[in-house]
């Protein structure tokens, strides 16, 4: 039976590589998070102005960094997928966007929780927070577009085009929002981290940032591997259908994997 797993859609090499990297990434994540949390909650001093609420920064800032980092990775993966038609790059972009959306949501929620004690309102239209909010919509758009297609390969290509168009717009949106913010509100109060940040506060920030990155790599690989397993599953379903009779494969095969 001719294998319908065409040589492009059979990225075993990636599965071997990710199989090797995955345990290491998981171990690093497991080590970094406790250290980061310990430093953030216990070992670092409260801020003279903000008091204990500064500890929220150790979660808010890394999440905001990750939100942008993941979108950039997705844009690069999408470019590789579109230009060189590399299936693994498609899968990487698809696997990354829910994680990116998660980081963005964390950044927004912790931003609001940080803002409340400082200014008494849950949401302040600060330039950075607004940019992260718009980034959140870009993530939702990317995921929604991918899910709208029955055929995952077409969905991945459409989402890749959207990710590229989005990537071109992210800086434009960021600077327009900055400009809009200065137009309506002279000084932006929330300065993430601020220039004069004590060394004792830098350590927890960087440890937590690396912990977030390790987490991202770990679960990006986990999601990519399960996407590839799902692709093999779909291919097998098709041979099952074609084996059973010459009727064209029903889109149901695609539904099976996206559940």
């Amino acid at each position, binding site marked *: 039976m*001719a294998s*319908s797993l*065409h040589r*492009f*859609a059979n990225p075993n090499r990636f599965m071997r590589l990710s199989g090797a990297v995955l345990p290491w990434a998981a171990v690093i994540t497991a080590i970094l998070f406790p250290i980061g949390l310990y430093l953030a909650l216990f070992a670092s001093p409260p801020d003279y102005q903000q008091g204990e609420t500064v500890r929220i920064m150790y979660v808010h800032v890394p999440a905001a960094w990750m939100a942008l980092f993941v979108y950039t990775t997705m844009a690069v993966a999408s470019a590789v997928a579109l230009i060189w038609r590399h299936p693994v790059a498609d899968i990487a972009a698809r696997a990354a966007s829910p994680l990116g959306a998660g980081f963005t949501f964390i950044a927004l929620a912790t931003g609001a929780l940080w803002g409340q004690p400082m200014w008494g309102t849950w949401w302040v239209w600060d330039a950075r927070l607004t940019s992260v909010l718009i980034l959140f919509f870009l993530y939702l758009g990317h995921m929604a577009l991918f899910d709208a297609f029955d*055929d*995952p*390969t*077409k969905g991945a290509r459409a989402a890749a085009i959207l990710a590229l168009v989005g990537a071109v717009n992210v800086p434009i949106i960021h600077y327009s929002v900055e400009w809009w913010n200065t137009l309506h509100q002279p000084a932006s109060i929330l300065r993430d981290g601020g220039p004069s940040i004590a060394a004792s506060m830098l350590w927890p920030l960087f440890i937590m940032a690396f912990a977030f990155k390790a987490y991202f790599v770990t679960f990006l690989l986990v999601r990519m591997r399960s996407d590839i397993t799902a*692709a093999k599953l*779909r*291919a097998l379903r*098709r041979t099952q259908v*074609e084996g059973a009779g*010459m*009727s*064209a*494969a029903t889109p149901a095969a695609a539904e099976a994997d996206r559940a």
Partner: protein
Amino acid sequence: MRGERLVFEDISFSIKQGEALVLRGPNGSGKTTFLRLIAGLLRREAGHLSWRGTDVAEDPEAWRAELCFVGHLDGIKSLFTVAENVSFWARLAGKGDLRIGEALDRFGLADLSDVPARFLSAGQRRRVGLARLVAAPVPVWLLDEPTVSLDVESVATLAGVMKEHRAAGGLIIAATHADLNLDDVKTLALGSRQAS
């Protein structure tokens, strides 16, 4: 490949001026995919397609100027009249309006030319779709089930038009179940499991 489904692999063919290639094969064997691939609507995973010796990918626009694709749908706007529909596609192909009258006559649409397309029957709409072949003469015809919803008399007209096209040096690749009583026809069987 169509999305993730491998439709067919290592198929090769070549046809010369005046020849016709008919695609045979059960449903889902990729006849439409094959035609769309040649037209350039689909990306091919491997292999190449050359026209008069040069690879089609080098100048896709020039290749598209050489072909006329008739698919399942006829691309007819119900708001436009028959003449407006045919003349738009002729002008889009850069051929202008000079052969519109002839095209309409050939397919018996002359007296319907100012009728808005929404009143047409399926057979008439198909004939308007086919009129493009005459209105915008190009060497290569890619026909996907051209005789669908045509009455016997129109099928004969189509066969006549195809014969003239081949006599004038054109060539045809058609996917069809109906026998178009064409003589010396090459056939290519597409069954994704038997082929290769």
